[in-house]
């Protein structure tokens, strides 16, 4: 197994086509990352239709590369124009932009590049070791355990990115309901189809995701057309000095651990990781006063954590089929579309492909480091593309991408409808990521609940007698009610 894994990862380096693909996608990912509003999730949603005709490994490598490179690239605009290219880079603006204003933009970017690369590579290594171990545990899972696990995954939606817990859960339930549209899997009874037989097999993820992430973002961006962007000048990206390394190495290592752990938690992602990475960097720093005024520890803490979350988020995605973030939800769809069923099967029957994907992520981390060091200034200029040119292009890519998936115009209309739904949801404080995750997990929840009920002759409470299932349900309960209970206890103590 170990030898097979190593040779599969090494095969990425000797495959010129795959290397070229990763190189091109890294450039694209960095461009997507620096364009405010686009980000890794929207980029992956737009690119998904383009990967349909590719070999499965190449397709997932493309999506994973977009994920890691766009997550890093958000820091370029965060530092140079005080606008995070992705939400995961929001914490980088706190110190990146002030440092750039002091005339040290190159140093700020250098710190961001190195921290992101270390974070990304660390998390890929953890992914290589943790994923097969978790897959072995998952081998013991039956329907009750899977049901409880998906409930746990859904409960974690309460804390996903923006929006309050209640709003996120409402979004998640709406997503799960969407998964019930079409013929029911056991009985074949048609649900909510209204005579439209193109929906017989249910709503497909691709057009819905394009709508929720790309079209809704287009409408959100329509409100920012008057925004004027100010850039700070930069001569060249500087590698951190030995003095800098001495100051930040502990922060980077801490953030690597934090980011990877946060990424592994179902439904958490790079944004949460970077915020925690930043606040922990501040908490442990000897120079707390520098934070907010251009602290390199602040930049390193946020950047190492958000890129470490990318590898971490791939663990539940590939092992359990539970996405760790909006982008991994799209990668999960990519896996399914290409016939790579996430779970134990993937790690026993298709080990080579799995490790080729991990190897691609490793290579992508190295490539974005080189691009960050040598071409950040050039990429930063891309962010100045006028919105009135950029977003109409995104519209064209979205509608054609939605159509290309199945060759059905219905998918285009669905993308537009869900774009409008997603826009209004976001306007009223509902995040769209829970809807997407709910849509993916919906079928798993219902099917495993049905199987569990059959297993226990209709006695649903028997699910609680399964130790692992009980553990996941307790975690779900704690995830939902823990903060409330904790604050109640604190109040009582006070």
């Amino acid at each position: 197994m170990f030898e097979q894994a190593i040779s599969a990862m090494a095969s990425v380096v000797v495959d010129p086509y795959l290397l070229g693909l990763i190189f091109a996608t890294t450039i694209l990912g960095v461009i997507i990352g620096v364009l405010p509003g686009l980000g890794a999730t929207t980029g992956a949603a737009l690119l998904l239709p383009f990967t349909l005709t590719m070999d499965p490994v190449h397709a997932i490598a493309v999506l994973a590369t977009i994920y890691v490179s766009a997550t890093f690239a958000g820091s370029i605009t965060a530092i140079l124009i005080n606008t995070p290219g992705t939400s995961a880079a929001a914490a980088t603006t706190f110190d990146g932009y002030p440092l750039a204003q002091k005339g040290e933009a190159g140093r700020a970017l250098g710190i961001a590049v190195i921290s992101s690369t270390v974070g990304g590579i660390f998390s890929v290594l953890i992914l290589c070791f943790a994923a097969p171990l978790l897959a072995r545990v998952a081998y013991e899972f039956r329907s009750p355990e899977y049901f409880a696990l998906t409930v746990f995954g859904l409960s974690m939606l309460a804390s996903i990115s923006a929006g309050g817990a209640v709003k996120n859960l409402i979004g998640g339930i709406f997503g799960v309901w969407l998964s019930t549209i079409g013929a029911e899997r056991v009985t074949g009874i048609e649900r909510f189809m209204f005579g439209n037989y193109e929906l017989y097999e249910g709503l497909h993820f691709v057009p819905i995701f394009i709508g929720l992430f790309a079209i809704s973002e287009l409408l959100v961006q329509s409100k920012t057309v008057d925004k004027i962007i100010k850039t700070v000048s930069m001569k060249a990206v500087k590698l951190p000095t030995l003095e800098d390394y001495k100051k930040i190495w502990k922060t980077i290592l801490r953030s690597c651990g934090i980011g990877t752990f946060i990424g592994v938690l179902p439904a958490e992602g790079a944004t949460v990781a970077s915020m925690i990475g930043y606040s922990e960097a501040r908490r442990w720093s000897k120079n707390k006063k520098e934070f907010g005024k251009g602290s390199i520890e602040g930049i390193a803490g946020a950047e190492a954590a958000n890129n470490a979350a990318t590898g971490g988020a791939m663990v539940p995605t590939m092992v359990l089929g539970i996405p760790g973030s909006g982008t991994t939800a799209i990668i999960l769809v990519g896996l399914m579309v290409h016939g790579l069923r996430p779970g134990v099967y993937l790690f026993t029957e298709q080990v080579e492909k799995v490790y080729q994907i991990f190897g691609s992520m490793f290579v992508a981390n190295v490539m974005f480091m080189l691009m960050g060091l040598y071409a950040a200034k050039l990429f930063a200029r891309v962010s100045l593309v006028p919105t009135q040119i950029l977003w109409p292009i995104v519209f064209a890519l979205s509608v054609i991408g939605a159509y290309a998936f199945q060759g059905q115009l219905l998918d285009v209309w669905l993308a537009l409808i869900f774009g409008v739904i997603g826009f209004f949801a976001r306007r009223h404080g509902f995040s769209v990521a829970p809807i997407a995750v709910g849509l993916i997990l919906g079928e798993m929840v219902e099917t495993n609940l049905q199987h569990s009920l059959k297993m226990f002759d209709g006695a649903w409470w028997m699910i609680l007698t399964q130790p692992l299932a009980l553990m996941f349900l307790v975690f779900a309960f704690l995830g939902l009610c823990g903060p409330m209970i904790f604050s109640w206890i604190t109040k009582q103590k006070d």
Partner: protein
Amino acid sequence: MKNIYLIPLILSIFSLAVIAIALQLDTSPEMIVGDSMQARSFPIFLMLLKLTLIGILTFQFYKNNPKPVALEKYHTWGSMFLFLLFYLLTVYTDMFIGIFVVIFLMSILWGERRIWVAFLTATITPGLVFLLFDYVLKIRFPRGILMNLYYG
């Protein structure tokens, strides 16, 4: 009624409508379903859960009194109108005519003052995307005025 309560109201109406529709769904014989559940049960359960959460949300609104969301700018409404225009053009003329018109008008609507830039964006983008999907990905586009000329 304050318009912040419109959201819970709309969500509640939607949930009740789903329950009403679910109750009309066929039921399958006992021998097929066995000890499992009917096709209608799961969506109804979800909507009941959602109604509970909507209740909590309404209570939160009542306690915190959030600011109502401001009305959208004309750019946003205009963009949504362009989606509708895209639908009509695609159905009655051709998908690529729809894309061309929408990109052109969207660029102008969002503030592009140089007509030629909007025109070039509207022409080059769908052109390149068409070439990529047609030649590389071998996707056949829906028939319309332009596609009939192309496919023959």
